[in-house]
C-alpha cells in the first residue's frame, strides 16, 4: 500500500471501522518508526526543527499511537519509547533546574539531543531516497546474463549432483581420518570456536564466491575441533535453508552454493 493510499484508507475508514475489528487486519506501512513519524509531524505543523513545540508534537504523536491502537494495529515498542522520551523532555522543560544541574549544563536545551538525532535521521532518510532513485542493475539497467548452471559447469567440470545427508557425513568422516594425530601435551587454546562464528564465516565466504568447497573451509586449520564445528555449522545452515549442497561425483569434493538466488521477493 503506498503512502497516499494508506493515508486515504485511514481517513475514510477510521469512523467506519467500529464493527470490523475482527475482520480486518491492516498493515500500515506509513511510518518507518518513531523518527519518521516525528519528522512528518514537524513538517506538517511547519515547525522549525531547532525549535520544536514539544507539547504540540507530543499530543499529535500520542494521538497517532491511539489511532494505531483503534485500528487494531500492533504498536511497536519503539513508538512507546519515543513517547516516553517526548514526555521526559516536556517534564524537564517544565521543572526548574536546581543549582547543581544549572552549573553543569547551563544552556543545554532538553530538546537538543532529540533534534540532533532527528537531523541525522533525516539525512539518512534522504540519502536512502537518493540511492533508491538510481538506475538499479536488474531493474532499470541490465548486464549480459550468465546463468548459474553455466557458471557452475565452468568452475567445476565434474558437474553438480545433489547429495544426501549420508554422503555429507561420509565426506566428513574421510576428512577426520586425514587429520594428523593429536599431540596431548598442547596448552589448551585460548578461545574456542563457536558454531555461530563459523556460520558467519561461511556466509561471508559464500558472498564472495558462488560456490565453496568443503575442503576450502577447513584447509588452513585442519584440526578435529575445526572440522567438527564447520560440519555442525553446515548442518545448521542447511536446516535454515540458507545453502544447498552438491557433490561432484561419488567420493568427490562437496560444494556449497547459497540456496537463495537473486530472485528474492520483497521483504
Amino acid at each position: 500500500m503506498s503512502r497516499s493510499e494508506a493515508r486515504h484508507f485511514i481517513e475514510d475508514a477510521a469512523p467506519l471501522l467500529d464493527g470490523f475489528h475482527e475482520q480486518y487486519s491492516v498493515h500500515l506501512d506509513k511510518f518507518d518508526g518513531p523518527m519518521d513519524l516525528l519528522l512528518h509531524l514537524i513538517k506538517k505543523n511547519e515547525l522549525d526543527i531547532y525549535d520544536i513545540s514539544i507539547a504540540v508534537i507530543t499530543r499529535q504523536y500520542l494521538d497517532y499511537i491511539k489511532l494505531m491502537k483503534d485500528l487494531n494495529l500492533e504498536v511497536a515498542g519503539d513508538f512507546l519509547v519515543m513517547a516516553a522520551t517526548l514526555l521526559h523532555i516536556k517534564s524537564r522543560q517544565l521543572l526548574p533546574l536546581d543549582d547543581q544541574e544549572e552549573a553543569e549544563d547551563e544552556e543545554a536545551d532538553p530538546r537538543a539531543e532529540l533534534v540532533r538525532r532527528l537531523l541525522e535521521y533525516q539525512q539518512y532518510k534522504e540519502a536512502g531516497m537518493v540511492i533508491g532513485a538510481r538506475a538499479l542493475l536488474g531493474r532499470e539497467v541490465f548486464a549480459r546474463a550468465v546463468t548459474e548452471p553455466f557458471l557452475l559447469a565452468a568452475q567445476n567440470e565434474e558437474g553438480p549432483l545433489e547429495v544426501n545427508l549420508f554422503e555429507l557425513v561420509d565426506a566428513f568422516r574421510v576428512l577426520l581420518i586425514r587429520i594428523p594425530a593429536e599431540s596431548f601435551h598442547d596448552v589448551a587454546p585460548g578461545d574456542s570456536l563457536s558454531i555461530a562464528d563459523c556460520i558467519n564465516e561461511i556466509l561471508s565466504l559464500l558472498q564472495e564466491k558462488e560456490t565453496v568447497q568443503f575442503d576450502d573451509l577447513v584447509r588452513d586449520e585442519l584440526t578435529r575441533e575445526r572440522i567438527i564445528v564447520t560440519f555442525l555449522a553446515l548442518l545448521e545452515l542447511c536446516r535454515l535453508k540458507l545453502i544447498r549442497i552438491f557433490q561432484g561425483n561419488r567420493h568427490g569434493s562437496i560444494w556449497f552454493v547459497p540456496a537463495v538466488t537473486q530472485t528474492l521477493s520483497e521483504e
Partner: protein
Amino acid sequence: MSSTLSSIIESIIFTSDSAISTDRICDLLDEFERDEVRAALSELAEFHEARGGGFELVAVAGGWQFRTRATYQSYVTRHIKARSSKFSQSALETLAIVAYRQPITRAEIEHLRGVDCGGVLKSLLEKRVVRILGKKDIPGRPLIYGTSKEFLEIFGLKDLKSLPTLKEIQALDEVPQYERQEELPLGQTRAVPVESDLPFE
C-alpha cells in the same frame, strides 16, 4: 576505435560475467604495457560514450561492464524479467546508514533509526548488498556490517567514494522542501481537530 588493443579489451569485457577490473585486464594482457592498456581502455570508454547505442560501458564496483542504458528499460523488460530487487523505504534507509557509516553495528543503526532493524538487516544480508565484516571488540562482541561488492554493482557505483556526499544530498533537497511545505492545506485541519484526521493532514 581503430586500434586492435581496444578491440581486444572490448572482447574481454564483453565475455566476463561480472565487472572486470583494469588490473585484471592488464594482467591478462601481459604482452602490452600497462599504460598502453589504460590508454586503450579510456579510448574504448570514450568510443562507447560517443556511440550512444543501446548499451554502454560503465565503470562499476572497481571494474568495467557493459550495461544497457536505463532509457531502454521498458523495452528490455519485455523479454527479460526484471528482478524484483525492490527496496522498501526502511530497507533503503538502513542501507544508506550502513553505506555511509560502515563499519557499523546493529545497535548503532537502531539508535539512528529509532526502530528495530533486525528484519531489515536480515533481508539486506539475503539480498547480499550488506555483509558481515566481523565483530566489534567491545563487550558482547556485536557483529559489524558494511556494504558488499554487490551493493556497488546493483546501485551502479564505481566505488564507495562515488556515493553522493550527505552534504550534496541535503543541498539537493533544500529548495523543494520549502515549496512543498507551503502547499500543505493546514488551515482547515487546525480549525476542526477531529480525532480521526489529527496525525494525517
